[in-house]
């Protein structure tokens, strides 16, 4: 029995080691260009012609970077937008650029910065994925895979119940 166990371990241990090495890469889908790392990118399922996508970008370098545009084959046009709220009135504005400061991830979220997808050419369905190209001022372009969440989603995870006020 000893021999059998030893043989099994000789196969099993390296296999487990390899799986452990590869698994994070399979799970994480982190994409990077230079020092810019895209941590999450998701969109809501669409109902009409407009949609919204959200990305979190980390800057592991020392210089300021800027996201200056977006494009995707699933929509006629896409742009950087933000929401401002004053006296309870919500207004949307187009943004020329979103700054990504070293050490301070640029986080897009509902009620704030977001990517607006205009003139969707296809319905975005929960569970789907589609490509989105991020245009940076100095770091070139990066195409990432967007995960489509539910039509009312606020993020990729369930709410924690915190007030954002």
């Amino acid at each position, binding site marked *: 029995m000893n021999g059998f166990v030893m043989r099994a371990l000789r196969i099993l241990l390296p296999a487990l080691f390899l799986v452990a090495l590869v698994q994070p890469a399979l799970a994480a889908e982190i994409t990077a260009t230079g020092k810019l790392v895209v941590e999450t990118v998701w969109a*809501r*399922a669409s*109902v*009409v*012609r*407009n*949609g*919204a996508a959200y990305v979190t970008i980390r800057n592991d370098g020392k210089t300021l970077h800027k996201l200056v545009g977006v494009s995707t084959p699933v929509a006629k046009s896409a742009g950087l*937008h933000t*929401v401002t*709220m004053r006296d*309870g*009135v*919500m*207004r*949307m*504005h*187009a943004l020329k650029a979103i700054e990504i400061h070293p050490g301070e991830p640029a986080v897009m979220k*509902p*009620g704030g910065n*977001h990517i*607006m*997808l*205009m*003139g969707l050419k296809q319905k975005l369905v929960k569970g789907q994925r589609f490509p989105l190209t991020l245009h940076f001022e100095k770091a070139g372009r990066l195409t990432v895979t967007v995960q489509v969440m*539910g*039509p*009312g*989603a*606020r993020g990729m995870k369930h*709410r924690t*119940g*915190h*007030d*954002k*006020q």
Partner: protein
Amino acid sequence: MRPARIARLLMAATLGVGVSFGLIALFGGDRGGPAVVVGPVTTRGVALVGGPFSLTDQHGKTRTDREFRGKYLLVFFGYTNCPDVCPTGLQDMSEALDALGPDAKMVQPIFITIDPARDRPALLKNYAANFHPRLVALTGTTGAIADTAKAYRVYYAKSGEKSGDNYLMSHSAFIYLMGPDGKYLTRFSYNTSPKSMAMGIRKLFKRSSAAR
């Protein structure tokens, strides 16, 4: 002044303050709770929020405010082409109702469009299906919507590129809570968590039933 006199004045003042506090504690307002609940305030004219409406739902049926008497209403104004605030606001409302459990049946969720030109019943039917199953989505003539928005003191306007069919809009993003008598109770700002919203609603359930 002589020390004895100062002492007497101080004692009188302390007694006065103490009695006032005591009276406030015994008879005065709220005993605490989530700060988000405003209650039936009359300052700044906020009690004038709400009013009669006669609009068309996502099935093409006429709905009026009067048919909802006896229920609380959770009302949100928005438009379907709104990519960010509206779907999340409606989702928050749905989740707040879920958090109310069996008491949710006392609350009627309502979405009123401020873009009646594009948001016709068929489109609203598609849209509403993504949120709470009992969500009533309302549209109407430009005039009827304008009257309703005015009654709720809701601001709305086209923004950015106004021509053509691709315009965006700015609008008030509060979620209004109306009582079973049709009168305004409170409002929640956008980004109020479903949990807080449910707590705020529940607190007003108790107050309304205690008043009877």
